[in-house]
């Protein structure tokens, strides 16, 4: 924490020392900052203090004589005299501790928390007490599952209100609560309403004792044989800071690290538990190549040879898809290799994002700026709660605690609708018109399914003079990205000062853009000298037999590209598919050469998050099987192809990256390893993207409903599917309809309906989705049991479907 700026400090006395607190600083924090740790259980730096546990009582004289005060609720006032060691203080703290212990079980040896438990530690320090309590302890049924991921042992619970406060105040999922009263008080859920929160794991981490345990970690390891390093989550582009913990060279637990800039210590359950996939059956451990006409395990040099051969095809006959999974250094190595080969057809996105130059050209906001007090945030993206959960928590906090106003300009209601000052949900394809209407101040009548009143309130907020941040992403996979581009152009016309925060979700995508792994840009995010094909173009060319080699750089187009048919055709048609990946998937299955890459937690590197912040990726465990770091694979392919990357170690790569890319010129790579928020790289561009504002919206073809396809956190993706604890979480596939459309179509809620797209029919249960505009229909992307990509085609800028009962 930073020291107080001179002059602003509040003078007070702590255990005889004259010190300064920050204005408004809580005593418990000020003391901590000056090296005095006051014991506490209910206090948590990222939650509202409640002063319940009374462990932090200290003797304070604020002018009216010394009195016991909870230091977690007390802001330091001038000339306050605090005594944390007086007899009164110690007596009070010991007394509270004894009362904690009388009903607390003595099962530390079998408790997950044993060895890292503040109660246990304090108890050793304190000693006696216990023996004086000869009465029966409180008894409860031993651990009960309160969700698929979290178990609760009520006998161990000390009722500190941390989990419940987190659930209601931070996550907005008040599904666990204090029940009953007094000495019978317990934390629990409502019968048959489990604690189904995307953020449940945070309660386990926040629990000061072993009352809450995470199913994936229970009994996996003991704190004393755990070692940890601090790293960055690659699960999504927020880049949450994490601590990777391993036992016997196996990753067993991920904890959130409190990064002031990014995740404040919180994680989504996906960021916390999806590491399970790296140890799963699907993990790729051995190189494979064609032996005869069978793809089977071979030695590395043989596989590399096969890949090199495929890459020696004419440059314009090669397409490379993917790269967002890779650490920055590997992205650089690949970029250099492909440039040296003259390959321009490279795209780190899978047609499910936005053009690289648009994002690289516009994105200039930080998370802190987007979540700034009193700001205005426009959501021109998918639901952050589903795609960028830790960003969602920051935005939610901004709206609830810091007076930020949210404007939803989204295809459907989001997890933030409850906090939104204005909710605009245009019909698919209409978002550009709606944004234009805002820009033109034409808020008189309904546009694209958005009521005049909502247009007016949104317009008011955008022109209020308050700082505006546009969160820009791909809201609807069934809709051409052109509409979002036109919309952001219009919004910038209305609010030229508005900043843009990228909501491209995939791992290290922003590193990939800086490294030029996108057709519109070259290394250093400079406009491409030769513009190659994007993923859509690559797949079309491949399907048309115009490509020989397709390299999948940690990409699964069959699952992710919003036109599965095309992706399949493409992979069938090219002569060689080279897959470089960590996990087996449908696209890897179609490959002729498979190069196993080392996964997050197994390699060192760097990560660039959606705000352009550089942070470290650290190796904690030995790489699985024969897998190798992506940068090494690139380097070896380079030498196999007699190309010189000028670097054969990670450090050399970093050096040449700094040399080649101005934005990284003064990065101190070694400083990345220390546990502070990484540096923001300079993203000012000498160019600006073209943002065509007028795009035609195809008139409805009489089919009736316009489709919204977007992601849910728990989907059928390999990461979730291969994580034992998460695999069961995806929802049943369903078709969401506006309440009004149920009558209009004569459908009963929950009834299975027939939906037809371009002639083909599918069946799904129809469920009501409050807030969805009439005439829209929503299907989650890539859920087990239903492949929404099958409904999509690159030829259709919007997707119309016909829905009929039976």
């Amino acid at each position, binding site marked *: 924490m930073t020291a107080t700026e001179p002059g602003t400090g509040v003078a007070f006395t702590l255990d005889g020392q004259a010190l300064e607190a920050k204005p408004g600083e809580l005593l418990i924090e000020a003391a901590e900052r000056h090296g005095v740790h006051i014991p506490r259980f209910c206090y948590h730096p990222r939650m509202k203090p409640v002063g319940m546990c009374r462990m932090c009582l200290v003797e304070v004289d604020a002018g009216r004589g010394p009195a016991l005060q909870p230091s977690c609720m007390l802001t330091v006032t001038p000339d306050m005299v605090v005594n944390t060691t007086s007899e009164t203080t110690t007596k009070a703290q010991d007394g509270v501790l004894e009362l904690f212990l009388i009903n607390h079980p003595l099962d530390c040896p079998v408790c997950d928390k044993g060895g890292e438990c503040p109660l246990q530690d304090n108890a050793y320090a304190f000693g006696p007490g216990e023996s004086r309590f000869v009465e029966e302890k409180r008894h409860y049924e031993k651990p009960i599952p309160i969700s698929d991921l979290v178990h609760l042992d009520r006998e161990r619970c000390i009722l500190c209100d941390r989990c419940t406060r987190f659930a209601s105040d931070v996550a907005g999922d*008040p599904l666990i*609560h204090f029940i009953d*009263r007094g000495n019978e008080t317990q934390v629990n859920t*409502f019968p048959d309403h489990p604690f189904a929160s995307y953020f449940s794991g945070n309660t386990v981490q926040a629990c000061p004792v072993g009352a809450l345990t995470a199913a994936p970690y229970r009994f996996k390891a003991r704190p004393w044989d755990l070692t940890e390093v601090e790293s960055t989550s690659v699960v999504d582009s927020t880049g949450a800071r994490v601590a990777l913990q391993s036992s016997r060279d196996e990753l067993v637990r991920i904890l959130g690290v409190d990064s002031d800039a990014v995740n404040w210590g919180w994680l989504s359950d996906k960021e916390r538990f999806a590491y399970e996939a790296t140890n799963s059956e699907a993990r790729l451990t051995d190189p494979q190549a064609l032996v005869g006409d069978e793809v089977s395990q071979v030695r590395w040099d043989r596989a590399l040879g096969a890949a090199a051969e495929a890459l020696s095809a004419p440059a314009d006959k090669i397409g490379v898809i993917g790269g967002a999974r890779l650490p920055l250094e590997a992205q650089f190595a690949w970029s250099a290799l492909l440039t040296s080969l003259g390959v321009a057809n490279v795209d780190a996105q899978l047609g499910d994002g936005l053009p690289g130059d648009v994002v690289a050209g516009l994105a200039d906001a930080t998370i802190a700026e987007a979540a700034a007090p009193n700001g205005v945030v426009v959501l021109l993206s998918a639901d952050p709660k589903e795609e960028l959960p830790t960003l969602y928590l920051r935005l939610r906090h901004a709206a609830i605690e810091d007076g930020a106003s949210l404007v939803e300009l989204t295809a459907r209601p989001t997890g933030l609708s409850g906090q939104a000052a204005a909710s605009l949900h245009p019909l698919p394809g209409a978002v550009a018109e709606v944004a234009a209407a805002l820009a033109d101040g034409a808020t008189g009548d309904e546009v694209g399914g958005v009521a005049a009143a909502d247009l007016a309130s949104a317009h008011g907020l955008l022109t209020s003079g308050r700082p505006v941040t546009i969160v820009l992403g791909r809201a609807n996979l069934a809709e051409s990205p052109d509409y979002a581009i036109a919309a952001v152009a219009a919004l910038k016309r209305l609010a030229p000062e508005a900043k843009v925060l990228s909501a491209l979700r995939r791992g290290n995508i922003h590193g990939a853009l800086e490294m030029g792994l996108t057709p519109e840009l070259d290394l250093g995010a400079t406009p491409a000298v030769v513009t190659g094909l994007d993923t859509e173009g690559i797949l079309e060319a491949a399907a048309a037999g115009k490509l020989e080699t397709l390299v999948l750089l940690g990409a699964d187009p069959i699952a992710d590209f919003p036109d599965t048919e095309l992706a399949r055709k493409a992979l069938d048609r090219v002569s060689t598919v080279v897959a470089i990946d960590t996990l087996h998937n449908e696209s890897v299955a179609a490959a002729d050469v498979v190069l196993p890459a080392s996964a997050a937690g197994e390699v060192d590197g760097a990560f660039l998050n959606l705000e352009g912040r550089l942070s470290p990726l650290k190796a904690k465990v030995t790489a699985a099987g024969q897998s190798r770091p992506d940068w090494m694979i690139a380097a070896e392919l380079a030498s196999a192809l007699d190309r010189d990357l000028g670097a054969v170690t990670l450090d050399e790569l970093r050096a040449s990256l700094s040399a080649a890319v101005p934005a990284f010129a003064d990065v101190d790579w070694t400083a990345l390893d220390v546990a502070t928020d990484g540096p923001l790289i300079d993203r000012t561009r000498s160019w600006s993207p073209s943002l065509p504002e007028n795009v035609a919206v195809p008139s409805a073809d009489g089919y009736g409903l316009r489709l919204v396809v977007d992601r849910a956190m728990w989907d059928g993706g390999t990461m979730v599917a291969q994580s034992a604890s998460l695999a069961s979480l995806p929802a049943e596939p369903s078709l969401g309809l506006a309440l009004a459309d149920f009558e209009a179509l004569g459908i009963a809620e929950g009834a299975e309906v027939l939906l037809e797209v371009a002639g083909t029919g599918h069946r799904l249960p129809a469920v009501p989705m409050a807030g969805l505009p009439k005439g829209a229909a929503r299907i989650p992307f890539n859920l087990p049991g239903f492949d929404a990509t099958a409904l999509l085609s690159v030829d259709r800028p919007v997707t119309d479907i016909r829905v009929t009962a039976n």
Partner: protein
Amino acid sequence: MSRLTPQNVALATEIISRYPRPKSALIPLLHLAQEQDGYVADDAMAHLAELVGVTPAEVLGTCSFYEMFKRHPVGTYMLNICTNLSCQLLGGEELLHHAEETLGIKAGGTTPDGLFTIEDVECIAACTEAPCLQVNYRYEYRLTHDDFDALIADLRAGKRDDIPAHGTLGLIRQHITPDRVGGIEPPETAGKPAWFASREPAADEAGN
């Protein structure tokens, strides 16, 4: 049955309208649910959650804090016998034991015929009339054991139609006819009453 009936939903809506925030109506609404079913059923709590816009867990959190709310069926007549000090001094505990013996159940229990539940309760604000008890929250004062037996006999014989079944409190409800409402607003929009502003001495802003 245990979600609120349409009539009770109407009542609930009227009650909610008297508060600046819907959740403030929760305790009166839980009483309404208990009046309907004799206890507060899970489905009723889930329904109330919808009505005031919170989660069922939050409703349960409030409901379970207050001892008057029973989450399982109880006797038609709830006998709350006070044993706190004032009553204890004048035989409250003896009265409780007498009740337990005559009805053959322990405090907290319900007679097999589902007619009576006994509870050993805290001070019910009739200390000068000790020992005393409440039947469904209607008072009986200075009871001898014979008085108690007579009371039970009368209840059994249905002679006490002044005492409604468990769950019903006041028999008269507050009802504000719409034209008489002064104006109830959410705290977010409510401001200083015009009548007060007009009567304020210019000097003293605080108005007191």
